[in-house]
């Protein structure tokens, strides 16, 4: 089973089976408070997972997590790090691998699977999330590849809010705004990547911005 953790928007934790069956999902939509809720959500997701797939009413059985999928962003830094730190530590605690996943990939897979279920063709689209400071983060996708993973046409990038629609028009991508990143889909991206023996994201967070600092100017006179 795979534990998914994403804190790029709210806080989302889920446990899925290797074939994508969702065992549990615990979320907080609050765009702040990641450090406060992450422990309880983890505990709840693991406890719920013991009762079998969501909706099942079986007796509890042991949950053996084999991988931790970490949402690497993009997202506001402070919150994003809480989830990556938690995923890193959980993987260490259990002695299992950490699988980094671009958070937008989870949303993209959700969109593509939903359309596939309803038999619709999905035109090229962009996952768009709030990046604060009057910017959006976006990643453009076009369909699923042979491994069932969303095909990234562009890597995650930032754009001023007012420029987004023009940018997406240039790229020929429909706009899909996301207010949450589903951890169960994040875990499913990881499951498919593991099955295909592929690495789908680097192990560094997708900050997309340099730290907001400047080298201090020469000292100012204090006057006398």
């Amino acid at each position: 089973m795979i534990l998914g953790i994403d804190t790029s928007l709210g806080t989302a934790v889920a446990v899925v089976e290797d074939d994508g069956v969702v065992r549990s999902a615990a979320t907080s939509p609050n765009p702040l408070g990641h450090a406060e809720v992450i422990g309880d959500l983890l505990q709840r997701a693991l406890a719920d997972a013991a009762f079998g797939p969501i909706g099942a009413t079986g007796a509890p059985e042991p949950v053996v997590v084999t991988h931790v999928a970490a949402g690497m962003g993009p997202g506001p830094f402070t919150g994003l790090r809480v989830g990556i730190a938690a995923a890193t530590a959980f993987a260490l605690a259990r002695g299992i691998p950490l699988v980094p996943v671009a958070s937008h990939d989870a949303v993209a897979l959700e969109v593509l699977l939903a359309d596939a279920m309803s038999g619709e063709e999905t035109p090229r689209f962009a996952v768009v999330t709030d990046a604060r400071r009057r910017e959006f983060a976006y990643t453009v996708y076009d369909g699923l590849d042979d491994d069932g993973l969303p095909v990234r046409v562009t890597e995650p990038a930032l754009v001023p809010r007012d420029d987004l629609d023009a940018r997406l028009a240039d790229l020929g991508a429909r706009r899909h705004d996301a207010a949450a990143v589903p951890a169960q889909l994040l875990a499913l991206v990881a499951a498919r990547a593991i099955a295909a023996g592929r690495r789908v994201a680097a192990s560094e967070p997708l900050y997309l911005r340099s730290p907001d600092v400047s080298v201090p100017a020469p000292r100012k006179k204090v006057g006398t």
Partner: protein
Amino acid sequence: MNRDNPLVLGIETSCDETGIGIVRGRRLLSNTIASSMDEHARYGGVVPEIAARAHLEALQPAIARALADASATEGRQITLADLDAVAVTSGPGLAGALMVGIGAAKALAVGLDRPLYAVNHLVGHIAADLLTGDAVAYPTVALLVSGGHTSLLLVRDLTSDVQMLGETVDDAAGEAFDKVARILGLTYPGGPEIDRAAVGGDPTAIRFPRGLSRASDMAEHRYDFSFSGLKTAVARWTEQREAAGEPVPIADVAASFREAVVDVLVTKALDACARYDVPRLLLGGGVIANRRLREVTVARATEAGVEVRIPPLNLCTDNGAMIAGLAAELIVAGRPASSLQFGADSTLPVTEIQVAEGVRA
């Protein structure tokens, strides 16, 4: 859980040091510190976002190294599964930096199914002394001086009775060293640079002000510190020299500035010892590395009949072992673990030794 001699891993990320420490009761097994200090040098001070990024990068290797070091100390393999509890600093400190440690600690505790103790960073500095095998007796006065804090505490009981007597109302002492170093054209971190520059300087050459030390300050700020006026005084003094076309005697300025800082720290600490009739003074915090501060403290404390305790430097700077050590004391004292709902508290008061205490382990 072993409540008599618990094996605890502590995580400390309140400032620019990623500290992972492992203790067994009061026995220090490992003390791993990864610092991002070099990355802050060009900015002349700790940049919170850079510190937080560095914590996340350092986390996994630091935990691995702490386990390896603990195994070497114990002469047998220590793994995370052996832990009785996990401990973490929840404040005070830089919020974004604290959150990295908190996220990791909660997941470690849930992943291992072990109790979690969220503790106070400042009280952790006091607990560091317990790991030396030669701890100070209580009650004791404690002077904690670093780039992030300058606090004078009265400790009657480490796990239940720590009182803040006073703290800085503006800059921390370490910050004052950094800022004055910049005024004198020296690099970051300022403490060692000022020390180097002060060699051969006359500490009595310039009488810089002692903040909050006038008779009129005694009613409200007897044990508080202020270093911002001192920094301004140094800047003004050097500017006047430069404006007059005279050379700035860097060694004298550095020595006189350092003397002003040391004087006010030691005077207030010993005043607290006298007023509370506690003939013991414990030092902690990174600025304790300053040799002049240690010398003056020992000399004047001896004169006043006060015993001084100075833990080794790697236990004085921010570290995870002190956090693990404090949690071990709380466990031995029978305190229940913290619940999982706490967050980072950048201004956590020192009276909150443990945060979110609740679940009996």
